[in-house]
């Protein structure tokens, strides 16, 4: 029950949970921004029908693909730690 280290497990474990949560929140936010952005770029806002038409569908697929690519590029720039000045 007593340990030599006064706060070992509790904090380390909480930190692991907290990191996992932060990581999941990041993924959710990435997905949401991507979805909002591609909706804005690809979907006709007059809403003449409830279906996505062929043009919209192929625009969405390409938009997701390009967004993913931009995400990768920016990730490389940031992790390169390239001093931005």
């Amino acid at each position, binding site marked *: 029950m007593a340990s030599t280290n006064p706060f070992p497990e509790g904090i380390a474990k909480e930190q692991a949970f907290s990191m996992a949560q932060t990581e999941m929140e990041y993924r959710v936010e990435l997905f949401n921004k991507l979805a909002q952005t591609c909706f804005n770029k690809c979907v006709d806002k007059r809403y003449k029908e409830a279906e*996505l038409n062929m043009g919209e569908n192929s625009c969405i697929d390409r938009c997701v693909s390009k967004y993913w690519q931009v995400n990768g590029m920016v990730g490389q720039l940031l992790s390169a730690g390239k001093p931005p000045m």
Partner: protein
Amino acid sequence: MDASMMAGLEGLPEEDKAKMASMIDQLQLRDSLRMYNSLVERCFVDCVDTFTRKTLQKQEETCVMRCAEKFLKHTMRVGMRFAELNQNAPTQD
């Protein structure tokens, strides 16, 4: 995501797995509610522009329903593409 995320939690006692599962449930609930709020906001902004009456006009209602359905279909499609990309390399060009 999952692999690295779970790194610190592998082989933990049942109690922690339950805590983890509960956390994921909470995040999913929160995310659904946020999506609901965003959907309402978007379709309201795009479809409602006259304020001479306090109830929706017929064509505003139609617009809102189409907008909501279209956004849901769009989200499902994006979800499929996103899942495919996540399964492949972290970045794809």
